């Protein structure tokens, strides 16, 4: 380290705990008032799951950005760039380019065909029961992995921000975050949750913008000088070049490719992102919301590049790695270095809010999927009235909330980025082939859908269980054991093509033909929006 870099004293952070908690409590109080106000006219199922389809494109686009820019994006990417340099930048690019799949191929068609959940679209022209159950299972699986990541992220963030480093204290904080999340979703439904996402997205982007501007100002708005500063602090010129993390062996290079594949194909298959398209009144608003979110997310990821290299230059990789919370502490430490306790307090409140909001969005998606797809369509065989369905959804929220709290306590301390990349790989394997086939391939059948969804889901999960992430390496979840017979940490490169292949194979081997009338209806509805749009006056 050079003398130019004033050291960040991690011990000083403890003095700011009260301030952090104050700012956080203020945020919770303000959003709770908004949630309660927003929920006053939550009456029907459409109100509860789809916010009465009352949001505009820009509002929903901001909420999508709020859903998408999770703790993994803000803390994870900044940390990855600060430590691994260019290889961390890959996350930003993959997460952004992925939105083009959603924009061009999925968003509007899905908005026009479905009502509340992903399964509405997948089961539209196939056999209802089996396809709905499969879609609901994969929705629950993806949401659960995503939830674990967020809760684990909350745990490691706490250790740094509030100075709580013992296991029991962190568990208590996870319980508090989980309980708050359950309250938001129970009271506010989709409308309340969407408002929390909107507020949080604006705060997060504003906070990141201030820090980016500040870092750039230190280097005279010269990106080259900032990069030079990062190299100087780290003493490693390779920080600017690819391969620092993934370039070591041939296996790790394939792993990089696998990660790239999962990132770019995962977004358009994430159930909680798909469900957001139902909160707008028309396909045109769905398109507008994706455009808004692409701009917001893209600009935010440009900020992370500056923040990541800024943290590498001003805080230093060694300090970051040694801090409680490890890699994930890069962004908060940079905030502390720049603006002292006040900026740290703001940034940590925003990071908390991020986790809270993303967890709320995931929970409502999982609850809607269980209540609408499994309870109403399968258990009650379509005979449940909307009020009972919403009641079931609310109970599911509580159950999922408790599961997430338990899972978060046990996943605490585990690699957050891994869990998120896992959720992306599972989503891309289990959902994307069936979404694309059922929208664009006339001949696609129920058997193809089931083979693809169950095959992709189990392949992704089994390969991860057998990967070095779970066992056989120093950083594994179970470091003592070794059953890692699959060498890659991300299963995407195997499980995603396999799921596409199984969807094709299941279809061509299927002797049953699907209803051509339903196929015609789905195609016409998806492209014209008839029935899903408000009737035009004529």
């Amino acid at each position, binding site marked *: 380290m050079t003398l130019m870099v004033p050291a960040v004293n991690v011990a000083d952070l403890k003095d700011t705990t009260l301030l952090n908690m104050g700012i956080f409590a203020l945020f919770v109080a303000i959003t709770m008032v908004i949630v309660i106000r927003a929920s006053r006219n939550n009456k029907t199922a459409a109100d509860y799951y789809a916010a009465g389809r009352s949001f505009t494109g820009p509002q929903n686009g901001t909420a999508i950005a709020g859903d998408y820019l999770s703790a993994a994006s803000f803390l994870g990417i900044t940390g990855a760039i600060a430590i691994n340099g*260019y*290889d961390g*930048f*890959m996350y930003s*690019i*993959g997460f*952004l*380019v992925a939105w*083009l*799949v959603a*924009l*061009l*191929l999925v968003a509007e068609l899905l908005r026009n065909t*479905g*009502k509340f959940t992903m399964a*509405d679209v997948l089961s*539209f022209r196939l056999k209802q*029961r089996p396809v709905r159950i499969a879609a609901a299972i994969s929705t629950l699986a993806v949401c659960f992995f995503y939830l674990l990541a967020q809760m684990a992220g909350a745990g490691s963030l706490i250790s740094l921000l509030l100075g709580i480093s013992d296991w029991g204290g962190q568990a208590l904080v996870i319980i508090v975050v989980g309980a708050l999340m359950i309250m938001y979703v129970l009271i506010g439904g989709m409308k309340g949750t969407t408002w929390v996402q909107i507020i949080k997205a604006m705060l997060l982007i504003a906070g990141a913008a201030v820090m980016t501007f500040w870092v750039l100002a230190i280097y005279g708005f010269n*990106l*080259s*000088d900032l*990069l*030079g500063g990062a*190299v100087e602090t780290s003493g490693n010129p390779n920080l*600017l*070049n*690819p*391969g620092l993390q*993934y*370039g070591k062996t041939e296996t790790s*290079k394939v792993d*990089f*490719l696998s990660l*790239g594949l999962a990132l770019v194909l995962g977004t358009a298959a994430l159930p909680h992102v798909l469900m957001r398209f139902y909160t707008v009144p028309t396909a*045109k608003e769905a*398109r507008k919301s*994706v*455009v808004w979110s*692409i*701009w917001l997310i*893209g600009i935010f990821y440009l900020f992370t590049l500056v923040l990541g290299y800024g943290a590498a230059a001003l805080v230093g990789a060694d300090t970051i790695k040694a801090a409680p919370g490890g890699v994930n502490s890069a962004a908060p430490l940079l905030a502390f270095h720049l603006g002292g306790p006040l900026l740290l307090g703001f940034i940590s409140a925003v990071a908390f809010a991020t986790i809270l909001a993303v967890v709320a969005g995931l929970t409502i998606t999982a609850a809607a999927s269980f209540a609408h797809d499994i309870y109403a369509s399968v258990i009650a065989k*379509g005979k449940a009235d909307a009020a009972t369905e919403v009641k079931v959804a609310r109970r599911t929220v509580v159950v999922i909330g408790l599961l997430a709290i338990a899972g978060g306590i046990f996943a605490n301390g585990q690699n957050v980025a891994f869990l998120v990349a896992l959720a992306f790989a599972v989503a891309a394997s289990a959902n994307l082939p069936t979404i694309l086939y059922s929208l*664009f391939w006339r001949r696609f059948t129920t058997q193809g859908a089931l083979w693809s969804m169950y095959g992709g889901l189990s392949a992704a999960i089994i390969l991860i269980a057998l990967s070095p992430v779970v066992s056989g390496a120093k950083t594994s979840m179970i470091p003592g054991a070794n059953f890692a017979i699959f060498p890659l940490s991300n299963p995407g490169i195997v499980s995603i093509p396999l799921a596409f292949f199984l969807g094709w194979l299941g279809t061509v081997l299927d002797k049953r033909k699907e209803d051509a*009338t*339903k196929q*015609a*209806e789905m*195609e*016409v*509805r998806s*492209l*014209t*929006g*008839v*029935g*899903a749009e408000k*009737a*035009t*006056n*004529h």
Partner: protein
Amino acid sequence: MGHDAQETDAAAAVDFKEVQSTEQFQELRTRHRSFVFPLSIAFLLWYFAYVLLADYAVGFMSIKVWGNITVGLILGLLQFVSTFAITGWYVSYSNRKLDPIASEIRQEIEGHEFDKHGNPVGGTAK
């Protein structure tokens, strides 16, 4: 069984196969697919070309173009530029080429031009 989601909408009595076979709808379908398919293939190829370069052409990506700005950084930032550009292009294409024809078909369906029995079914427009 049946699709419980859309029971009460204006399109309940529509003969969708007839709509699907109209020239107008075929035109909409062609316009949509001939735009989104090639463009999707193009941006995925460009993205994977970038990932493969970062993976296997480290030397090339590490060439410094100006100061500490490398080829890799420029290509990475170009991914952002291309994403924003494709987004804008798609929106303008949809507004010009897809939306007008889609809303025309929608109005014809809602005006009961494709009903199965020739007589208006369901409520009139509100």
